[in-house]
Structure formats: structure tokens, C-alpha cells
């Protein structure tokens, strides 16, 4: 198993949070989100992102608005909803606690 395989499950679970983070920082359209993630750990593709975005929308965590773009079709700009903001905060908190806990468990011997 290489590194990729080890981390893929974690990444998969965290992708939701990462996407919410991106949107929380600035309302973005899909291509922007992809661009933003491109450099880091969570690089992903349309094939994964689109279904994810639509799920988040369905769950009421994000919303989108159509914005006319210059020289192209109108774009869907995603913004965080109230519920999404709440979820994001909770999840960040949970992640913080969990990381701490995991580290702690490792120290006890």
C-alpha cells in the first residue's frame, strides 16, 4: 500500500469539509473550487466534485446563484447556507478534538 491508498479514505471523508471551507472563504464556482484544490492534498476533478456539490445543495449546506460571466455561459456561484456554516464549524471542532485525541492515545503506553 502506498501513501495514496492509506490516506484516500480520510481524504474522501474530509473532502466535504474542504469544499465547504473554500466556499466559506469566498463564493466560488466549480472551476474555481477545483483550481483552489489543485495544488494541495485534496486535488479532485469534476467527476467527483459535481455530484458532491449537488449533494451538499440537496442537504441544504450550500446554495448557489447564477451569475453572468464575461464571454461564457452563466456560472453557478456557490455560497454557504446558515446550516452549512454551522456544519462547517462543528466539523472543524470535531476534527480538532479528534486529532488531539488520536495523538493522545498514541502517547499513552
Amino acid at each position, binding site marked *: *500500500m*502506498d501513501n*495514496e*491508498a492509506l*490516506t*484516500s479514505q480520510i481524504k474522501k471523508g474530509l473532502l466535504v469539509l474542504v469544499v465547504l471551507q473554500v466556499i466559506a472563504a469566498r463564493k466560488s464556482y*466549480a*472551476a474555481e473550487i477545483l483550481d483552489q484544490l489543485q495544488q494541495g492534498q485534496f*486535488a*479532485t*476533478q*469534476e*467527476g*467527483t466534485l*459535481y*455530484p*458532491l456539490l*449537488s*449533494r451538499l*445543495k*440537496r442537504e441544504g449546506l450550500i446554495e448557489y446563484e447564477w451569475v453572468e460571466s464575461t464571454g*461564457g*455561459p452563466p456560472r*453557478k456561484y456557490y455560497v454557504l447556507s446558515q446550516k452549512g456554516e454551522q456544519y462547517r464549524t462543528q466539523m472543524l471542532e470535531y476534527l480538532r478534538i479528534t486529532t488531539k485525541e488520536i495523538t493522545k492515545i498514541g502517547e499513552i503506553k
Partner: protein
Amino acid sequence: MKKTVNGSLAGKAFIFEQDAYVAIESFLHRSEQRLKSDPDKSEILADIEAAISEKLTVTSRTEVVQESVALQVLEQIGEVEAAGADDDEQKSTQTAVGGSWGDKLRSLLKHPIYKNKQDVVVDGVASGIARAVDIDPIWVRLAFVGLIFAGGSGIILYIVLSFLMSSELKGEQIKSASIANRAKLRSAVDKSSSAASRVASPIIRLVQLLVRVAAIGIFVGLIIGMIAIIAAAGYSLSWAMKAGSEAVNLGFSGLQGYIAIASLAVLILMPVLAIVTLLDRSFHKRPRRNFRFDWIMIFVWAASIFGLSISAPTVYSRGKTYIETKQPASGFVTIENWDGELTNLCISDQTNKCDTLKNIKRSTDCGGYWYVDGEQGAGSQWAFSIIDVDTGRQKCDVVKSVQNDLFGLSIVFASKDVVRLNTETKEQKAAYWLRSVQY
């Protein structure tokens, strides 16, 4: 020259190379399958289509979208992963086809079957079929191996299918190359193979080994088969040349003969071509050719029937005449059991060498010669010497023709001299065969 296909993505028109079109279409089809249980399926698909459209516009530098460009764009997009609950996701991404056997069958009929290039023993045909019906590839492979013993039909079927089924190479390559999926795929493979080896009993392993051995056998068989085909081609060529001259004799000559041959060929080949095309379409999900082409085909076929109907009578009557005139020379003209009287009737060559009349046959190689006891005359004719039993006088004569019909053998001599044959001393049987001797 490459074939192009028109298509639109998200309301924008494109001209695709055929392969590019097929790649994109199968990608969208796969995506749809994977999003089957997603309530926002159509919206996501529309977004993905728009993304492809946009990327194609940016990436494609030629007027016609090339396959390489299409693949590149699809690679950027990545295989669609359903984002439902985890269980759901597993199910819908890993098996494109699920549910009851009825669903499977319906899906099979509706969608093309691809080779599975992830799991290849020979060419991925068996595993492709197995994936389509969602069973373990081992069973399909066993079926193929089993069919090999049914007159080798397994091999033939496999070869035919491997030509008909397109490999999902495009999609799968993208899949394995895409960032998001690489790990997932590997872990899936790890999981399945390790699970298989953990769970698999020695029997299954043995079967797998046997399949592998059989696959090697198929390869060897293919090579032998190819050699055989080449040899057969050479043989049939020489045969065709012989048959050709015979065909000319049979009446396939002249304008009407050529019309007959051409019509016959079209008459037989066209339906074969049609069947192959139909199979090809159903496997590749190619865009339908225009109807005009089909109509032309049907017209040509009808024309061949017409052509045959005008040329057949002539060819038939010519052939019939030929066969009828050829009859005497065909096969052996034999006088059997000429026992007791062997010296009475003999055929000799010009040097008056007598021989017993055991076999008379016409040599087809030299035309017009007659064999006696396997010897062949040097001259153009054989002398036929007849010894009168009463006087012992010997008279040589030249055989003009020998004819054999249902009633026996007739020998016609060139000479007008009459030499009487003492028929009384001959046995009934011999007399039967030697119906008439004319001088």
C-alpha cells in the same frame, strides 16, 4: 480519411472524430449509470456536459475534435463518483449493473459491452462479459474453455467477440490516471484480489491456473490456426485456379458467366455483411449510418437476384451440356472380371503390344489417351487389337472412342475392316459390359 460525427454538448455543436465521439458518449453513459440513484442526476450530468463542452472549446485546436483531445478532456474531468451515502456509493460505482436478473438483461440489451482491460487473460472479453452481468469472470472463462471442446467454437467465438467488443481502454485509462480514482481503484483491486486469495479455496486457485494454461493453449492454437489459414489460402488459391478453368467449362464464361459469378457473390456476401454490421452496431453503439447506404445495399442485393435470373439459364444449359458430354470420360470406364477370356480382347499400342483389357480410363491430363493397365500410350491414339478366337488371326485397329453409359461399354473403331468377335465364347458378364463393338 477519418469519419466524423456531429454532436452537441450543453447546447454547443461540435464535430467529432468517430473515436472521440464514442469516447465521450461512453463516458457520459457511464456517468449516468453511476448517478442512477442520485436525485440530481440530470443536473449533475448537465453540469458535466457543460464542463466537457467548455474544456473542449479551450483545448481543441482543430476544427474536428480529435480522439486524443477528447481523452485528455475526459481525463481532466475524471470518472464520476456518486456522492450518496457510503453503501449506495459503493454499489453504484463498483457495479454499473445491479438488481435483478431482469434488470441485468435489460441493461445488457440496451448498452454496449466493453472488454475489461483491468482484468485480462487473453483480451479481456470474458471479464468484460462477466462485469456486464455482474458475475465472477471465472465462470465466463470456463464457458469459453468448455466451448473450445465443442468443435473449437470457443476460440472462434472469442476471436469474433474480441473484434466486436471495443475495449473500455479509454475510460479505464482515464480512470486509472485520474487523481481521485487512482487510489480508490488500487484499493479496490487490492481488496478484491486479497479477498479472493483469502477466501478462495485451493479448488478455485486450481481452476484459475487451468484457465491460465488454457489461455496459453488458445494463443498457441491461434498461431497454429494462422499458419493453417495461410496454408489453406494457398491451397484454395490453387484450387480456385483449377476450379476456375472448370467453372469456365461449366458455363461461367462470357458476359453472362461473369454476371452470374458477380451476382452469386453479392447474393451470398451481402447478408453476411449485413449480419456482421448489425452485430458491430449492437456492440459498439455506433451512431447509425444513414439510411441511404442501407437502401443502396438492398438495391444492389436485389440487382444481384435480377442478374442471376437473367444469366442463370444460359449458364445452366451450358453447364448441363458440358456435364453430359463429359460424362463418358468422367471416372473410370471399367470392364470388370474379364476372366477366362483375357487374351481374346486386348488393347495394344502401335507396336502391337498386347495387353489384357482390365481397365480402360481416359486420362484427363493428356486428353484423348487411353490407359490400359496403367500404361499410357505414346501416340495420340491407341490401337485396339482383337484376336479372333476361331482363326487366331490378330487384327489391330485404332480406337476412335470409348463410350460408357448405363448399359455398358461401347468401343468405336476407326477402321472399316470388319473383324468378327467371337462373342459366343464370352461370358455373359463380359458381354453385358461390352455392349457394342463397332468397326
